[in-house]
């Protein structure tokens, strides 16, 4: 078990989530990596748009970025080489957020329902957190016994 120091429950009978409590961090990592994978698949297999990548990332080519997103997203989801992969994603999604922010017209809302760069900024921030914590207990990094 990752950690046994559990806070007592107000309604213990309703605490159906108790067996899954220690999975929360891994679940966040898994979902973040898992939702980066479709970006890679779109760029690689469906000629998806890559206008949001901006100058430097675009110069690498969508196939390079797409391959990294596909493979790196799977690695992040599984917690394999978590910190270096998260570092590269933080740089990539941070660059996308900055590119998007520079292209916004003044007064454009950053609220959730718009296609604004708040999402890539959020993903980049999550990746910075993954750098700090690493893969955590439920990760392939821990199974390997070595991590960056």
């Amino acid at each position, binding site marked *: 078990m*990752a*950690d*046994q*120091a*559990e*806070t*007592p*429950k*107000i*309604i213990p009978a*309703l*605490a159906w*989530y108790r067996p*899954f*409590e*220690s*999975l*929360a*961090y*891994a*679940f*966040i990592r898994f*979902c*973040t990596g898992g*939702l980066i994978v*479709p*970006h890679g698949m*779109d760029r690689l297999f469906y000629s*998806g*748009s890559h*206008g*949001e990548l901006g100058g430097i990332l675009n110069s690498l080519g969508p196939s390079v970025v797409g391959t990294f997103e596909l493979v790196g997203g799977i690695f992040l989801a599984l917690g394999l080489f978590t910190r270096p992969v998260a570092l590269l994603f933080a740089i990539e999604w941070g660059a996308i957020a900055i590119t998007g922010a520079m292209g916004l017209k003044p007064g454009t*809302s*950053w*609220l*959730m*329902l*718009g*296609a604004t760069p*708040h*999402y*890539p900024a*959020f*993903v980049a*921030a*999550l990746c910075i*957190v*993954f750098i*700090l*914590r*690493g893969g*955590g*207990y*439920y990760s392939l990094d821990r199974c390997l*016994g*070595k*991590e*960056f």
Partner: protein
Amino acid sequence: MIDETRTIDANELIIPALAGAYRTLGPLAYAAIRVLMALILFPGGIDKLFHGGAARIATGAITAMGWPFPYAWAWAVTFIEFFGAIMLALGLFTRPIAFAMTVQLAVIAFGIMIKRGMFWTSGGIEVALLLGLITFAFVLGGGGRYSLDHVIGREF
């Protein structure tokens, strides 16, 4: 609990010199994600509470979905995004708040954003989907070690 107090073993690190930084900052990761999540929802709450956003979504998106009592739902969303975001950041009543956010984000994802495609570049479903999955993680994990729930010593 959420993997926050597991000690980081320098022998497991490829660069052992980083162990000190990871030991200091790593345990804060889960709480940092909670605060990030609150920060991304909070501007929506400010907009709805102080800039007419509640009325706008009541007459717009909620009415378009055909829900009864659109203003009641709009104010529920406003409460979740403003006061809920503050409570989530502090880790107070984390699970009920996170559950309400999960339901709200699921409705936004599958009721509104899914029509715009998958990706954020078109305002697609992935935005609300990732946020909803993360709030669901807080339903599973609760507030964690660095939360008011933990300070109080009881949690849902």
